[in-house]
């Protein structure tokens, strides 16, 4: 408060614009000598606060743990939290503030694709590092970004495989919110399903706007589509807020998982905490981590997390695990490079392997994505997932999907000599700005 | 002054508008005008005419339809039935909107004085002054010397010269009434409709207003004044028309009208 007060006084004294500039510029000089700053760029207000706030807490938790373990390179870590308020241009502005003004060594942040797209130019321009912890549509590989969430092949395709193998599904509803992740994922799935012999008329694709709340017509359509005599499943890429009314309507219209199972890619423990899960019993989700993973590493993490949040009901979820993996990878890379300098850390990160929370190890690959196991879970009455399938090995991310026309010839490899995020194997050229 | 027989409300076969055109020399011609609001007949087959250069006073109890009559003439309300013609029957007012009617030369003063409160008195007159009305040319409009002279004249007429730089909203009630009349003058209309110009005025102001209106009328403007103040109406000394339940109850000199049994019964009281 005091700080704000001085600002106000200073402002009153001078011409407005100049004072604002000085106030903005002068804020962050103090006391940064012995710490390494870690930026946290997650929305704490607005529509995305619902998902992102937990990730802010996760980073703060990891920073505390790391400091308790002696910090990094002998220095303490210091988290710098900003609130981009679910406002995409503000993400870019805050990213710039973190890097240019606060001089953070790394940023953990973003959830939506658009927020990531918004900050990308900033990270490239100022050459810093972003860890992005959410499953996303792929079709991207940037030098300054490390993707610890799943690419479509690490989530969507195994889920569909599971339904085909275990539930004999022949007819598919691809329902999503109308934005880039569902659009791309569904394009990939459509191509994949067709490659598996599913006919055009057995695929129904439906898009709804953000926050769609009246699902009566669409659920009725799904019901109708599912009564044609073939086993039907819904693949849901419906985004956050719209899920609750969607599942409530499913329950209302009496669609059970044994009739038409719904497999979701955006519904985790955090989202289920807001839903009465009794009618949802048996509906599925595909992730790379569930809180119910029964291994000691996970039990240990959950215990510490709940102690940190002083809430023994606080759940964990997949993007949290991705944040944890990213954080540990960064720490390890900094120690390997012996510096927090971005170029050195970016080079050091490739090949870094850290334990994940499902009992295995995840490695940072040259395409800046990590290897992951894929888990399929059925919703239980207590809002947790019963893991019904786990891929035997780890899956490497296909950042450029072979099922999409535009990207089937592209690969990413950030090691020398290729050092390219969109290398075209047909033309033998780096397709984008890297030539 | 021409006396036109008041048609019976039950007009079985209405003559075609073309015929009316030839019938009338009147500046304003209303025939069998009816206006209904949710079943309530505000005007009931109202008919009358106003000649060029005439001043007419309209009296009548509340709800007699005086304001609605003005609304119909100025295009604010469309009549359900009936004809309203202007300029010797050449112009059908029911087909026009407020702006077009104002441009034709009908000015109106509202019951509650309505001036532009956040403009100076001078600007109020400038805005009202006859001249360019289109939006885009007015961005670059410059005031001519003739216009300045005309405004100074009006200031003399409405006796507000020393208040010219005050905001309209800062004037007293009476001053606002005069300003509004001045604005009407600035528009230079053929016909002025004046609704209760002396409501809330002192006796001296009332007398001054009557003089003002006579002066305006003497300069060739037709005037229709709606007023309750009988002293004022007497001061005007013009033909009087009494409305009741949306039609003309009586018409003539003030004395004739005041002597009418029905008028006494419904309006003046015994």
């Amino acid at each position, binding site marked *: 408060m005091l700080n704000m007060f001085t600002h106000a006084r200073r402002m009153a004294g001078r011409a407005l614009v100049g004072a604002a500039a000085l106030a903005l510029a002068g804020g962050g000089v103090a006391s940064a000598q012995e710490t390494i700053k870690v930026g946290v760029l997650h929305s704490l207000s607005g529509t995305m606060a619902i998902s992102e706030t937990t990730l802010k807490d996760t980073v703060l938790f990891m920073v505390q743990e790391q400091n308790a373990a002696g910090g990094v390179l002998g220095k303490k870590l210091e988290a710098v939290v900003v609130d981009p308020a679910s406002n995409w241009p503000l993400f870019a502005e805050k990213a710039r503030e973190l890097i240019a003004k606060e001089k953070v060594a790394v940023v953990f942040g973003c959830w939506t694709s658009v927020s990531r797209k918004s900050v990308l130019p900033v990270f490239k321009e100022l050459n810093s590092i972003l860890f992005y912890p959410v499953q996303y549509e792929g079709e991207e590989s940037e030098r300054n970004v490390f993707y610890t969430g799943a690419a479509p092949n690490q989530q969507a395709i195994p889920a569909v495989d599971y339904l085909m193998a275990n539930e004999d599904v022949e007819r598919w509803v691809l329902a999503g919110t109308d934005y880039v992740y569902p659009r791309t994922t569904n394009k990939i799935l459509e191509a994949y399903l067709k490659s598996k012999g599913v006919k055009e008329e057995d695929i129904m694709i439906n898009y709804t706007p953000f926050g769609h709340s009246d699902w009566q017509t669409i659920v*009725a359509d799904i019901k109708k589509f599912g009564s044609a005599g073939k086993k039907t499943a819904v693949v849901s890429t419906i985004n956050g807020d719209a899920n*609750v009314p969607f599942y409530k309507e499913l*329950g209302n219209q009496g669609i059970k998982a044994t009739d038409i199972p719904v497999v979701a890619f955006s519904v985790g423990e955090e989202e289920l905490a807001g839903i009465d899960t009794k009618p949802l019993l048996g509906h599925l989700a595909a992730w790379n981590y569930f809180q119910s993973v029964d291994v000691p590493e996970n039990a240990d993490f959950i215990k510490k997390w709940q102690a940190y949040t002083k809430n023994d009901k606080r759940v964990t979820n997949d993007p949290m695990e991705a944040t944890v993996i990213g954080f540990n990878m960064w720490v390890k890379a900094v120690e390997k490079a012996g510096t927090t300098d971005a170029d050195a850390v970016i080079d050091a990160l490739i090949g870094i392997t850290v334990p994940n929370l499902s009992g295995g190890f995840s490695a940072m690959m040259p395409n800046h994505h990590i290897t992951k196991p894929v888990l399929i879970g059925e919703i239980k009455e207590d809002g947790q997932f019963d893991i019904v399938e786990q891929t035997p090995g780890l899956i490497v991310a296909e950042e450029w999907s072979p099922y999409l026309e535009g990207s089937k010839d592209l690969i990413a490899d950030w090691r020398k000599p290729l050092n390219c995020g969109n290398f075209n194997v047909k033309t033998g050229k780096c397709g984008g700005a890297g030539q | 002054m021409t006396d036109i027989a008041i048609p019976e409300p039950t007009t079985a076969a209405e003559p075609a508008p073309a015929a009316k055109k030839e019938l009338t020399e009147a500046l304003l011609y209303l025939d069998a005008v009816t206006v209904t609001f949710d079943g309530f007949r505000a005007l009931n087959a109202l008919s009358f005419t106003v000649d060029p250069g005439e001043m007419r006073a309209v009296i009548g109890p509340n709800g007699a339809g005086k304001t609605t009559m003005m609304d119909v003439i100025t295009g604010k309300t469309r009549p359900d039935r009936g004809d309203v013609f202007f300029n010797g029957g050449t112009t059908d007012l029911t087909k026009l909107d407020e702006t077009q009617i104002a441009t034709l030369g009908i000015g109106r003063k509202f019951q509650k004085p309505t001036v532009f409160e956040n403009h100076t008195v001078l600007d109020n007159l400038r805005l009202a002054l006859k001249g360019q009305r289109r939006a885009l040319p007015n961005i670059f409009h410059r005031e001519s010397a003739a216009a300045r002279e005309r405004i100074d004249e009006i200031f003399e007429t409405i006796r507000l010269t020393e208040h010219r730089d005050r905001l309209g909203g800062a004037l007293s009630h009476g001053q606002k009434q005069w300003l509004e009349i001045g604005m009407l003058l600035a528009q230079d209309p053929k016909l002025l409709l004046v609704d209760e110009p002396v409501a809330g005025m002192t006796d001296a102001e009332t007398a001054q207003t009557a003089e003002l209106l006579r002066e305006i009328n003497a300069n060739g403007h037709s005037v229709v004044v709606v007023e309750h103040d009988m002293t004022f109406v007497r001061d005007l000394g013009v033909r009087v028309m009494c409305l009741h339940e949306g039609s003309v109850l009586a018409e003539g000199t003030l004395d004739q009208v005041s002597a009418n049994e029905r008028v006494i019964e419904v309006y003046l009281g015994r």
Partner: protein
Amino acid sequence: MTSSARLFRLARVLCSALALLLAAALVQRAEAQDISAALSQLTTNKYDDTEAALGALALSGSPAAAGIVSALADGKLVFGGLPPRVFIEGPGGALLDPLTMQPAADAPAVKPVRVNNRVRRAIEAANGALSLVSPDAGKRREAALAVGRSRDEAALPALEMALAKESDPKVKSAMNLARASILIAKEGITPAERIAAVELVGAEGNQDALAILRSVPESAAPEVKQAAAVAIEGIERNLAMWGMAQNVWYGLSLGSVLLLAAIGLAITFGVMGVINMAHGEMVMLGAYTTFVVQEVIRTSYPGLFDASLLIAIPLAFLFTGLIGVLIERTVIRFLYGRALETLLATWGISLILQQAIRTIFGPTNREVGAPSWMSGSFEIGHLSITSGRLWIIVFALLVFFALLATLRLTRIGLEMRAVTQNRRMAASMGIRTNWVDAMTFGLGSGIAGIAGVALSQIDNVSPNLGQSYIIDSFLVVVFGGVGNLWGTLVGAMTLGVANKLLEPYAGAVLGKIALLVIVILFIQKRPRGLFALKGRSIET
């Protein structure tokens, strides 16, 4: 309740079970098989084994089978010990022997036998197979319907055998229908038989019948195909009409949600003229009140859960009404006559309330459950009605008429109307206008709170809840005509139905856009909304 899809699913498993059962019946059910093999299969913790064990149990004829299957369905079947054995978890967590239902001698550490969708279906099938021999006619009928939907030729002999024995006419007609459904696509039957089947199925007239009729094989006689085509056309015409009715129902349901969201605003904005941007947050507070009530009930009085909404309604009304009064007294009352400034102040208040809730309850969704009487659905003709939606419509109308009555019939209602029509006159007649203002705003807010209770049943209970309703609410009030409660009712229902009638053609997004454009154009036609007050011009 019964979803056709679920029945179909059940039927496929059932048919194979049925065939086996038939075989078993033919050998006169030798003796109750030993089920110990099946029981040990349940301890392997593998879904395949569990499924197989269920099949064995269904056919075993063991008297313990039904109990074991239902324990599995309830998650009460556990296993543990060395070698692993199966127990049924009794009341109070006691372990019972599944065969004898006596308490087990020892109590090893146990885990529940895991269940997934496949196992759940196997449970249903096992229950179904057991239910065909069940004395309950309803269950037999359900099984027959399921066979019909599966159209599995293998089930035909079993079905015909059951048909011969059946005496209940309802069950019999269901079995006849099932038989016809199978015969339609069967090879090698006479055209006359096939036509009879087509007619029988065609008489059903629903979506399923349509699918069955389409399965008439290409090789069928022309007159059969002709009969099928006629039947299909008839059903389609019929269903199109029902589909229209269904859309109207959806529309009314959406309309009732809009009505609930807007009705409080019709008071604070429509009657009082406050451009109340915090209205949505009042709805949100009502929803959170419901959450708190349910939390208390869950932890302390679980038996009251079904009454939780009824308890929440008055509490939400009082709480949000109180907040409304507080806002009115501290902010709004200084802003009367400056309507546009109320927009700014209430916008600020809405930000504060959102953040307050976010700080107290966290940013994530909170769980509000549905009481049992609001779950499920039923059918009228081919119209599917969900109970929750039906109750929300009823509730919205109740709230609407209660409010109307309050304004029309009560003293405070009279005073409210007096104050909003002529404040000075009302004051001079001894009405405490300050108090009436506060009460009016409180009433509007309280009603928004009640709406929140209902909306918690269909939407997220999150700090953003209010934001998603505020635009629609204003649109409804303005469309209906500011200051007219009936306008709000008609406006909400019109917009709801129009939206749902547009949706099938234009899709959810384009439909909504089209609706917004229609409202914009409509306001051009009637600049004061649907129910504008017409009258003598009141001059400026």
